[in-house]
């Protein structure tokens, strides 16, 4: 009887994870989104660590199921999902590729870096947060845009309107 085949390399596992789409925004993968923080073997078991985007995001559980299914499809039956809250997910972890795909899909990617937000540095005093950022229209490129609704179709997006080409569009909030 031959020895069991060596388990797939972690590099291979990452390429498979990179094929798992985000359930809400299928043009980007979960690795583009930056939520897969780690993949490692614990003995024979593969452990994938995921950091949720928003606490209440309903996609979180779907994503865990999709990862399990994708790994199983590649022959990895023994996998465990772990959730890691800290450090908290930030849109700063969106890959450049992910930002380009969002733009091409018609969703304006986050403007600026979340790490620069005041709440990340000031522990005691509250200050009025700055107004919404200037966002370029992903269709025509104009910056003559306005917020229609700070809350959008999913927790991670706001709804904008371009006053140049008149099209509404989603903006992926800097978070």
């Amino acid at each position, binding site marked *: 009887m031959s020895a069991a085949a060596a388990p797939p390399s972690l590099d291979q596992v990452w390429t498979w994870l990179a094929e798992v789409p985000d359930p809400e925004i299928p043009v980007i993968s979960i690795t583009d989104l930056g939520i897969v923080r780690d993949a490692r073997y614990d003995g024979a078991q593969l452990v994938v660590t995921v950091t*949720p985007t*928003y*606490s*209440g*995001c*309903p996609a979180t559980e779907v994503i865990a199921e999709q990862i399990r299914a994708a790994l199983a499809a590649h022959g990895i039956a023994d996998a465990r999902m772990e959730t890691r*809250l*800290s*450090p*908290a997910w*930030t849109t700063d972890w969106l890959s450049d590729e992910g930002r380009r795909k969002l733009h091409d899909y018609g969703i304006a990617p986050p403007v600026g870096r*979340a790490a620069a*937000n005041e*709440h990340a540095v000031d*522990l*005691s*005093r*509250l*200050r*009025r*947060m700055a107004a919404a950022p200037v966002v370029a229209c992903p269709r025509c490129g104009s910056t003559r845009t306005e917020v*229609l*609704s*700070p*809350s*959008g179709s999913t*927790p991670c997006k706001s*709804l904008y309107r371009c006053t140049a080409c008149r099209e509404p569009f989603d903006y992926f*909030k800097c*978070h």
Partner: protein
Amino acid sequence: MNTARHDYLLRFGDNALILSQRLAEWCGKGPALEEDMALTNTALDLLGQARLWLSLAAEQAGDGADEDTLAYLRDDRAFRNVLLVEQPNGSYASTLARQFLFDAWSSLALRRLLVSSDAAIAAIAEKAVKEVGYHLRRSSDLMVRLGDGTERSHALLQAALDQVWPYHHELFTGDAVDTEMTAAGIGFDPASLRDDWLAYVREVLAEATLSLPKDSGWRPKGGKQGLHSEHLSKLLAEMQVLPRSHPGARW
């Protein structure tokens, strides 16, 4: 089991859960589509935060409880939320005034928990503080828009603020649980948040042309210890009816 820590976790979890349930009552009834989405988005964030806090409390108890049994199978006296969050929605102005006072407190409270000696608590705070930052921006902006809006919106919001104001005192009133958590480096002294909170509230109210309500001397409290108003029982009756009537029901 450290019962003070367990109580402490329930307080944060129940504040988020009960306020989430209140906001969800607006679903489909918001005064504008944008507001309907904002309220339910806020409710969803708070529900997610409640799950994190209650799961941690359940994990500590280790008695077979989980986030669902804590949310759906406890009676009113076992809830540890402040009275503020269980107050009825009332008008849109009342909902907004309640949210604004809570968001400002929650932002400050979570910042304190970022440096908690309890790593699991600090991690939840790190996640939640970013979301609550959005909530506070929205509720502050709306206070200004409606306060400094029409004569009617100003009058409605001032009346709503005056009405909900006495409930803010409980947020800054500590008890033995707070003392123990503060001594352990896990939590903070509630009274120590008051100055920063008041400074921020004053700033927004000034911009909103609203007056700081006068202190009537009436300072309702007891929610943190499980002594609630009748409003909570009715809220729970609606929130818990399905899992209580159909134990183990699944989609």
